[in-house]
C-alpha cells in the first residue's frame, strides 16, 4: 500500500492525537481553572511588625521615598526579620506620583490595596520568570511561578510550607493581562489555600511607586 505525503501527514497528526489522548488519560490533572480570588483589603490578618498602619497611607503627597536597600529572605515571614524594611514616616508612601488607585482588572487589587496588604503582613508571591525575580521583586515576596510545580516541586512545596493555608496571599506578575499570577493562584487553590488575591498592578508599578523591593535569586526559600 502506497501512502502519499498528505496521508502520512494525517498519520502523524493521528499518532499525536492517540499519544496525546493516552497521555491525558494517564496524567489527567491538567486544568485551566483559575483560583477564586478576593479583592479588597477587608478581613486581612495584619502583621503589626510590617511597616506603618495601612490606614495611614495618604491619598496624595508630594514626598518621595527611596526603596530600601536590604535584601531579605524571599519567603514572607510573619516574624519581622532583622533586615526588614524600616518603618517609614506616614507621608513617605505616596507612590512617587504614581496613581495608586489606577484602574485594574475587575476582582484584582489596586496598587494602594496591594501595598496596604503588604504593610499588614500579607504573603506576597512573585509569579514571573526567575530572571525577572532575580533582577528585582517586591520585598519579602516568594518566587513561585505555576511551572515550578512541574519543574521543581520540592522548591514549590518549600515556599508553600512557609505559608499557612488561611494566610492572605497576594500574587503578582507584570500586570495587565498577565496570567502568571492567576495560574499560580489556581495551583495554590488546589492545595487548599483560601485567601488568594491578585495584584492587578504589575511589579513595575510597584517599583515606580517607590515601594520596597529586593533583588537576588531565590534567597531564603526554606521556611
Amino acid at each position, binding site marked *: 500500500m*502506497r*501512502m*502519499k*505525503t*498528505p496521508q*502520512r*501527514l494525517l*498519520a*502523524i*497528526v493521528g*499518532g*499525536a*492525537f492517540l*499519544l*496525546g*489522548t493516552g*497521555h*491525558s488519560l494517564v*496524567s489527567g*490533572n*491538567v*486544568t*485551566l481553572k483559575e483560583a477564586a480570588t478576593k479583592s479588597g483589603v477587608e478581613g486581612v490578618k495584619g502583621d503589626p511588625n510590617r511597616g506603618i498602619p495601612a490606614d495611614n497611607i495618604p491619598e496624595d503627597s508630594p514626598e518621595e521615598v527611596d526603596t530600601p536597600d536590604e535584601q531579605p529572605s524571599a519567603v514572607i515571614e510573619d516574624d519581622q526579620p532583622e533586615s526588614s524594611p524600616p518603618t517609614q514616616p506616614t507621608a513617605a508612601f505616596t507612590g512617587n506620583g504614581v496613581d495608586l488607585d489606577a484602574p485594574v482588572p475587575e476582582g484584582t487589587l489596586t496598587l494602594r490595596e496591594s501595598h496596604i496588604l503588604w504593610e499588614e503582613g500579607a504573603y506576597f508571591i512573585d509569579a514571573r*520568570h526567575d530572571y525577572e525575580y532575580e533582577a528585582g521583586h517586591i520585598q519579602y515576596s516568594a518566587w513561585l511561578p*505555576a*511551572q515550578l*510545580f*512541574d*519543574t521543581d516541586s520540592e522548591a514549590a512545596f518549600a515556599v508553600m510550607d512557609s505559608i499557612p493555608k488561611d494566610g492572605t496571599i497576594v500574587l503578582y*506578575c*507584570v500586570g*495587565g*493581562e*498577565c*496570567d*502568571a499570577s492567576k*495560574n499560580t493562584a489556581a495551583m495554590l487553590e488546589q492545595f487548599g489555600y483560601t485567601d488568594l488575591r491578585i495584584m492587578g498592578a504589575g511589579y513595575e508599578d510597584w517599583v515606580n511607586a517607590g515601594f520596597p523591593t529586593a533583588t537576588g535569586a531565590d534567597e531564603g526559600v526554606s521556611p
Partner: protein
Amino acid sequence: MSKGKLWVESILLQTPLRVGLGGLFIFAAYNKLNGIQSFAYAIKGFQVVDADRYGHLIIMAAHMMPWAEMIAGVLLILGLWTRAAAAAVWLMLAGFIAALIHVIMDDLISADCSCFGDMNLICDATVGWCQVVRNLVLLIPASYLVWRQGGFLALDRVYRDKSMDDAPEWTVDNGGEQG
C-alpha cells in the same frame, strides 16, 4: 545532478538539517511533556481561543502538540516519511508564528512562549519578535526538506521501493541522473 553531487548534498545539507531540526523538535517536545500544566497555561495565555468556552481544546492541544513535535522529530532524524515530517514541522512553525504575531499585535496580552517548555533558546520566555524571527529561520530548513527530502542517508531511501509515490524521480536508481 550527478550521483556524486547528490551524495555531497545528502551529507552536507539534508542529513545535518534533518538531524538538527528533528533534534530541536524532540528537545522542545521533551521539555513540554515535562510540564504539560505549564504548557496548557501558556497556550491559554496566548488567548487565541476563549479559554472559558474552549478550555478542553486547549488542554487537548497541550497534550497533542508535544507528541506531534516528538513524532515529527523522530521521523526527521530517521529520515522516514521525511517530506511529511518536514511538512508537519513547517505547518507547526507557521502556526506558532501566527500565534506569536497575534500576541505581539495585542498590547493587552502578555504571554510566555513556552516554545521549549521552561527553557529558553536564544530568546526570552516572554513572547516577542525574537521568537518570530527564530521560527522564520527554522522554516528555511523545513522548507528545504519538504522540497529535497531526506537524501541518501535517510530511511526513505532504504524503503524507496515500497514508498516511491511522492519521491522525486532522482531517488530511483536510474544511473544517478535526476529525471
